[in-house]
């Protein structure tokens, strides 16, 4: 097990290098001089020169890349070209917003997706099953950002409801905080929940065909025990696989949803940095996201062993 984890972590090194070097070189191809973008058209040539010097923008690509890693090793992701703020500090400031939204979204995904999928699988062909299939295909097809726009528009037109725009801390004013966060989290979760519903249903259908399910019923266990202990547990492997992908996908959706709900999270930071050609910020965010995503992938693989003792890694 330990060996497996170490091997997986070693395999991550080339991938992280490919990702960060890829982004670094991509960003250099971008048209537009970052010095002009940061200082404005009126800046004198001297100022721009000084700016380039300060950020080592004229060094060869490989030198810049190596220096960046040197800084990263010391825990310094650099300074934003645009806002002159520390990239690490900015990420730390924005992260709680994105994290709260994603945690809530994951909660919605699990609560909406898994029970409905299990019941639909067991009651295959019932009205509930058709309902679940209909809801899940609709959920997969409706773009989250359109749903977000409808959520912001229709309740306002019908009842004049406007979700709060301020963002009180979770511990200062939990109710108002949740009122602010449930909507973006919910619209973000709809697609993921629909996917989870579908895969849970089909995994349950798969498991139900097994002899051990018949045996469990035959030895007189009641349905609840069979479903929870035998069926649901065995059906969880494909669900966990999809779930890992969904969590990563939620980050993508967060870029749009944070924009719509004006939540100052990592997604918005990423978008503005891209538009402003803020290299250090983009590199920092990409590195951060890469590490997060690959950790999630690793955790998913390790979860398999926890769910199914027959799976062992060596």
């Amino acid at each position, binding site marked *: 097990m330990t060996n497996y984890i170490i091997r997986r972590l070693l*395999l991550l090194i*080339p*991938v992280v290098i*490919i*990702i960060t070097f*890829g*982004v670094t070189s*991509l*960003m250099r*191809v*971008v*048209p537009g001089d970052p010095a002009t973008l940061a200082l404005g058209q009126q800046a004198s040539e001297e100022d721009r020169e000084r700016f380039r010097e300060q950020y080592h923008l004229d060094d060869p690509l490989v030198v810049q890349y190596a220096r960046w890693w040197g800084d990263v090793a010391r825990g310094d992701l650099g300074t934003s070209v645009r806002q002159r703020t520390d990239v690490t500090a900015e990420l730390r400031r924005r992260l709680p917003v994105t994290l709260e939204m994603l945690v809530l979204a994951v909660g919605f995904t699990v609560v909406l997706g898994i029970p409905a999928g299990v019941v639909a699988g067991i009651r295959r062909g019932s009205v509930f099953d058709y309902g679940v299939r209909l809801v899940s*295909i*609709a959920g*997969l*097809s*409706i*773009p989250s*950002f*359109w749903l977000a*726009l*409808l959520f*912001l*528009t*229709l309740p*306002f*037109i019908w009842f004049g409801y406007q979700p709060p725009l301020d963002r009180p801390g979770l511990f200062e004013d939990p109710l108002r905080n949740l009122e602010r966060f449930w909507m973006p989290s919910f619209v973000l979760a709809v697609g993921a929940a629909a996917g989870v519903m579908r895969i849970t*249903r*089909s995994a349950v*259908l798969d498991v139900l065909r097994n002899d051990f399910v018949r045996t469990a019923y035959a030895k007189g266990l009641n349905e609840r025990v069979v479903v929870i202990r035998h069926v649901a547990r065995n059906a969880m492997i494909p669900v966990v696989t999809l779930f890992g992908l969904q969590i*990563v*996908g939620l*980050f*993508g*959706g967060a*870029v*749009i949803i944070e*924009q*719509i709900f004006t939540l100052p999270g990592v997604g918005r930071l*990423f*978008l503005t940095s*891209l*538009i402003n*050609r803020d290299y250090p910020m*983009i590199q920092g965010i*990409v590195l951060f*996201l*890469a590490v997060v*995503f*690959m950790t999630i*992938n690793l955790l998913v693989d390790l979860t398999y062993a926890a769910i199914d003792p027959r799976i062992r890694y060596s």
Partner: protein
Amino acid sequence: MSDSTANASSEGASVAVGPPGRTRWQRVRRLIRVQPIGAISLFIILGLVLVAIFAPWLAPHDATAGVGPTLEAPSSSHWFGTDNQGRDIFSRVIEGSRTALQVAIFATALGVVAGSFIGLVSGYFGGWLDMIVQRFVDAVMAFPLLILALVMIAVVGESLRNVIIVIGIGITPGISRIVRGIVLSERENQYIEAARTIGASAPRILWRHLLPNLVAPIVVVGSAVMPGVVLVEAGLSFLGLGTPPPTPSWGRDLSDQRFFRAGPWMAIFPGLALSLLVLAFNLLGDAIRDVVDPRLRNR
């Protein structure tokens, strides 16, 4: 190679259902009976393709110029109402189908061709080449498609062509990994060994022997990525990094948030069109998968 997969590749999934030797019309009727939802979604997509092709003649008004009062509710002269610039939303939804479908079709085609090539080569030759290629695939696949597309678009700039290329590149690694997986099991078959024994070259084995056997799964994968492609195109346009104006795009039309409370029809109709297309692609993808692999039917 079985007859049905050969047909599936050239004429679409409809043919794969019916045994050969029937008339075309009988096959269509059989398709409708066996895969009614797939047939409906296919008709919706074909209808939207026709709308996209004939958009300039179908749109009652100029989609890019103000042709009426601003923010007018749907009426007989403007079926979907007008937007904040007085443009006819019905015409814009019709014209917007061109952007959505062009990206859906061409980006998917690009990703399928590139992904199949990379998957074939990486899986067939294996070794260090496979090792290196797969690390690049890992790197790209670590990120959600929208984030990849955003980074690339920021570099190459916004245009319809760039959106197609960027999304095509973004879906390539995922497709290549699936193709590679199938190649890994397929290459162990005796017919590959036989081909090698009689001295067939590697390109010939890949092209003439392996690829034809991969057509069915590749069609399934290709149809499965299309809904995502449409959604990412809309997302890019929504964020202002997709197709530049004045080209109408459903995603971009949904980004004028400020006006939606005064004119909700501005938000409703482009979003409905978008959802309909994604829904049709989702259902068609399911139907194609069922036809190619009937064990999965009704799942």
